[in-house]
């Protein structure tokens, strides 16, 4: 039971990073300026590194001979357990940066807390990721401020991104049965505890960006149960194409 819960919770976390990494990688060659092309793909690289560590650990915990690649490439949409926020389409640069900021502002206290996990591998992954995600917060935060406090056009786009995305943030604080079990066992942080730190990070940024988070709107959840939007299927079709077309292909 304990192993099954850890396996499931690791997969949720790995899926979050894998899917958001893929979304960022979609910008490769399409970013508005060269520096952003580098920045977005660098962040994607950090996140795929974290995902690999988590998938590998999940595969070890499972002990059935599946590899990190099997977990990433050979599960279908309903088996993916990422939160809905990370699968939202890139849309424009404002959506991409606000999505990144929402996620990074959550993951920073998450990894901070995971530094004291009772699982050594999780502590190792957390130690690395907590420093990388600090860069993601700064980078996305700077852009959110620049867009919100920028031109009419950039502010309008950022406000539209807020309307579209904020309903997906609540799910970050929901613990699935597996995640709840791991939190009680001291393996992973308690997601429900992190709201205050998340807001502490976001509030000064939104104040400078002259951006407000709407309140009282019902949240969208379901990713942890495998209930995804149509967009995830398209993403997986592209991500998994090679392994599906040529099973077992390797470098």
């Amino acid at each position, binding site marked *: 039971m304990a192993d099954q819960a850890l396996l499931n919770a690791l997969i949720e976390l790995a899926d979050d990073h894998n899917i958001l990494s893929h979304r960022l990688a979609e910008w490769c060659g399409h970013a508005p300026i060269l520096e952003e092309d580098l920045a977005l793909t660098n*962040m994607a*690289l950090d996140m795929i*590194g974290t995902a690999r560590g988590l998938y590998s650990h999940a595969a070890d915990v499972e002990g059935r001979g599946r590899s990190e690649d099997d977990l990433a490439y050979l599960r279908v949409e309903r088996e993916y357990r990422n939160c809905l926020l990370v699968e939202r389409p890139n849309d424009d640069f404002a959506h991409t940066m606000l999505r990144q900021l929402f996620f990074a502002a959550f993951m920073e206290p998450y990894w901070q807390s995971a530094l004291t996990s009772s699982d050594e591998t999780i502590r*190792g992954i957390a130690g690395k*990721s907590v420093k*990388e995600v*600090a860069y993601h917060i700064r980078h996305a935060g700077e852009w959110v401020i620049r867009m919100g406090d920028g031109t009419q056009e950039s502010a309008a786009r950022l406000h539209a991104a807020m309307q579209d995305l904020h309903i997906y943030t609540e799910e970050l604080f929901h613990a699935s049965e597996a995640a709840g079990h791991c939190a009680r066992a001291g393996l992973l942080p308690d997601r429900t505890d992190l709201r205050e730190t998340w807001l502490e990070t976001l509030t000064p940024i939104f104040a400078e960006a002259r951006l407000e988070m709407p309140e009282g709107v019902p949240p969208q959840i379901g990713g942890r149960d495998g209930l995804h939007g149509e967009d995830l299927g398209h993403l997986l079709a592209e991500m998994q194409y090679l392994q599906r077309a040529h099973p077992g292909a390797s470098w």
Partner: protein
Amino acid sequence: MVAEREKAWAAAASVPDPEVPCVTVADLGILRDVRVENGVATAFLTPTYSGCPAVDFIELAVETALRDAGFDARIERVISPPWTTDWITKEGREKLRAYGIAPPVKGSNSKRALFGETVVACPRCASEKTERISEFGSTACKAQYRCTSCGEPFDYFKCI
């Protein structure tokens, strides 16, 4: 036995970083230890960044260096405790500077430091009048800066 260990360490430690070839894996501090038992040399390596694409390449290069030195070689990846730029040796920092890469400035990575000022000295003329061009550079570990005194664009090895 001690001589064997020293020989294995010297072989592994001489491997250059593939992306920053002016420094070795020992200079960067990612070679944590080398142990020799019954003719098998085990090198313990810690990756710099989670997604560093050079990790597999470095492991292969160290393994090859140990084999060339006459050992059966084994690589063990150690992720805890995580690598930090503080592990770069003093010599490594000097080599980076001489190569044109500004070494990491301690304590410069705070998530609260939005638009924060990190004083990065130009590796060419040592001027502190420099500006950041991009937080992210040619590899995961670097940012791009420009010196406003001598005009030199340069890489800064980010502090993590």
